[in-house]
């Protein structure tokens, strides 16, 4: 019978995670000992038949004790919040040079796709010591991409693209599990993440069968579904030209400002009438939600991202 004692440790956040975890463990141990100690000592010392003198606790003193431990606990709570929060803030956005991996979750498998188009099922190969950004989508229900050895978990929610990232610092093979309950075979929605030396990863990557990468695939859909009819630079229709759009802020008709990120681009394809950029009219057909598959939306989004940002500026025509 095997005895797991920990999740293993294979990413750059394992160190700070373990430090915080250990500190909380020590704090918990100290408080448990304190409470248990107080209860045991008081219970024995002041048991009914003991003859020990009972002093009354003066009201003033008891108030000081009360204020003292309230302040102590409040300080500890804020201190640990500060520690956890400052460590978390550093992890929010993936580094710009991260290797970009697309993950499609569906009942009950993980499909991953590399920048060069290589695809895997229930597996992911990544190079060691290189940040890897995951763009997660789900085709059906909510799943959660969980690699315990990386201390990494991110829900894949249908209808939105979640971004998470990690940097593995040790080669090896690590289990990938689905953490969000997703139906009958939830416990069997498993995979493996293989961390390789960079040259081994390069060899592995080259050995994969040729496939279009997502952006190339998306540019095909861009023509096939008629997007280019309005959005291509040559078009006479008053529709935004998409080069350089990705990642830039835009003002909407109602005065709000949005950034054309993954979620906005995706929403603009599926619900084009919702957040219209100032200076445009809502003339785009809104039936793409019915005609495009989730995979095609992901590919189109990747294509639009591949167009920018660059020096091009999109000024609304008067």
């Amino acid at each position, binding site marked *: 019978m095997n*005895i797991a004692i920990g999740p293993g440790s294979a990413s750059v956040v394992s160190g700070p995670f373990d430090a915080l975890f250990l500190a909380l463990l020590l704090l918990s141990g100290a408080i*448990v000992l304190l409470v248990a100690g107080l*209860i045991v000592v008081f219970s024995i010392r*002041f048991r009914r038949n003991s003859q020990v003198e009972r002093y009354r*606790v003066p009201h003033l003193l008891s108030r000081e004790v*009360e204020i003292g431990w309230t302040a102590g606990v409040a300080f500890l709570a804020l201190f640990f919040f500060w520690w956890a929060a400052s460590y978390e803030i550093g992890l929010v956005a993936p580094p710009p040079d991260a290797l970009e991996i697309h993950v499609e979750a569906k009942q009950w498998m993980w499909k991953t796709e590399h920048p060069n188009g290589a695809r895997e099922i229930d597996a992911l190969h990544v190079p060691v010591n290189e940040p890897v950004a995951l763009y997660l989508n789900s085709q059906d229900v909510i799943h959660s991409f969980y690699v315990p050895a990386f201390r990494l978990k991110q829900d894949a*929610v249908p209808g939105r693209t979640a971004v998470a990232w990690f940097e593995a610092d040790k080669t090896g093979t690590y289990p990938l599990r689905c*953490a969000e309950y997703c139906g009958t075979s939830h416990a069997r929605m498993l995979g493996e993440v293989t961390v390789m030396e960079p040259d081994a990863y390069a060899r592995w990557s080259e050995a994969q069968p040729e496939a279009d990468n997502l952006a190339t695939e998306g540019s095909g859909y861009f023509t096939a579904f008629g997007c280019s009819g309005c959005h291509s630079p040559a078009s006479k229709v008053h529709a935004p030209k998409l080069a350089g759009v990705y990642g830039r802020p835009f003002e909407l008709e109602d005065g709000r400002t949005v950034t054309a990120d993954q979620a906005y681009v995706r929403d603009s394809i599926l619900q084009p009438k919702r957040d219209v950029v100032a200076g445009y009219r809502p003339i785009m057909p809104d039936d793409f939600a019915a005609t495009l598959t989730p995979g095609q939306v992901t590919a189109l989004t990747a294509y639009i991202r591949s167009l920018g940002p660059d020096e091009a500026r999109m000024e609304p025509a008067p």
Partner: protein
Amino acid sequence: MTDATAEPTPAYLRAGRSVGSWLLTTDHKRVAILYFASITVFFLIGGAAATLMRLELATPAADVVTAEGYNKLFTLHGVIMVWFFLVPAIPATLGNFILPLQIGARDVAFPKLNLLSWYLNLTGGLLAGAALTFGGVDTGWTFYTPYSSLYSNSYVTLAAAGVFVAGFGTIATGLNFIVTIHTLRAPGMHWMRLPLFVWSIYATAIMMVLATPALAIALLMVVAERTFDMGLFDPERGGDPILFQHGFWFYSHPAVYIMILPGMGVVTEVITCFARRRVFGYTAMVLALMAISIFGFFVWGHHMFVSGQSAFASLLFSLLSFVIAVPSAIKVFNWSATLYGGHVTFEAPMLYALGFVGLYTLGGLSGLFVASVPIDVHVHDTYFVVAHFHYIMVGGMVSAFFAGMHFWWPKITGRLYPEGISKIAALLMFMGFNLTFFPQFILGYAGMPRRYQVYPDAFAFWNALSSAGALVLAAAYLLPMGYLGWSLVWGARAPADPWRATGLEWRTSSPPPPDNFAKQPTVEREAYAYHERDEAPDHRDSGAHRPQSREVPDGRG
């Protein structure tokens, strides 16, 4: 058996013997007994489901039920235990019975509404039970969309309707208690003289009234989507699956406190009584209860750190979750300090109550781990979280429920139970609980997600240990049913105040007459005046007026 103290009126138990006299009663004590009967049945059903789950998890492979069957088991366990056992457990049984007695009232403010609450709870339970009989529900007690709205082929609508209906019972109970506490307190029962059990029910009732509607709306939306195909949670039609999580947790986080605050009240009554000591820091205890019930509404987002909510929201919810740990810690320290200078004895209620303090402390401390965003990212949806909330709800709430049952059993039934075996049961529950759930902390830290029917071999040892613990725990739950049942027929008659306690409920006979008190009691002193200056520590509190010591700031209310 001859009764030395002849009662002027027969006890509420003998006020009528027909089935109708029970099913149509408006006596708060009889309604409490009705609740007690129904939640006991629900507890046995939920417990049986848990036992089957632990049996399945004793080995890594699937060997007891199918994957489908396992998913239905944990859904059944969660739905039944949360809404039909834990939420009503203390408020609707002990609260219904003891609260009017403790404030010196003859009944709750709305006796008919009180009975209606029970029928709503029972109807909800029967609907949920019907969903189970027809083939089960496989969404988990959390009903997450879009799985529950678009994908599950099980009886989601029926189960959600059951929880929806039961919710109205909860709201009615909460409303009833709020009005009762405001309007029916005995002369002299100032707010700051209220026993902390009453305060805890008050704080709970506020949350019941304000939080339950959010759950009702969230579930109604799931039912609407399933029945009328409305697309509220369907992203392809502009819906948002995450919307459900906000509604659900806006209820379900306060619900955790709905489940634990009454337990805190019970434990305060028990510890003061068996330590023969006034509670340490009464005002702080009241403020802590109210702070928890208010802050409890603003931490729901800590269930969604990995759902994709903004990092700013996550940090804000993390901060508030750390803040709410402060009043919880104050309560633990105050219970410990209450023992100081007392004359402590260790009857069964006290053993359960001390067990509560220990288990609640562990559960609360593990809450600090999951309040930290980076740690929660790792342990969210793993057995760490399962262990965390079972320490609060089972280690905490169920221990407190048993403490209260053992404490007030003589008052409720008029009988005494055997002492030795009741102490053994209390110790057995403490040990069985830790054996069952402590290994789950380790499993979660090591990366075992919850709701897994099969798991890697590496997790086998801790799971086997946990399953063994579940057997001990099951025995510890069945034992009291045996000897408490025995005492109903063969137990010795209980005097009015077997524990020499101070609450008003002990000033009437055991069991009380239908109108509770022969004459309206009045209150001249603080709660928990167990041990005063110039007084023999074990002096029987007759309730007569005595000069107040300077230590007691009187008239604080």
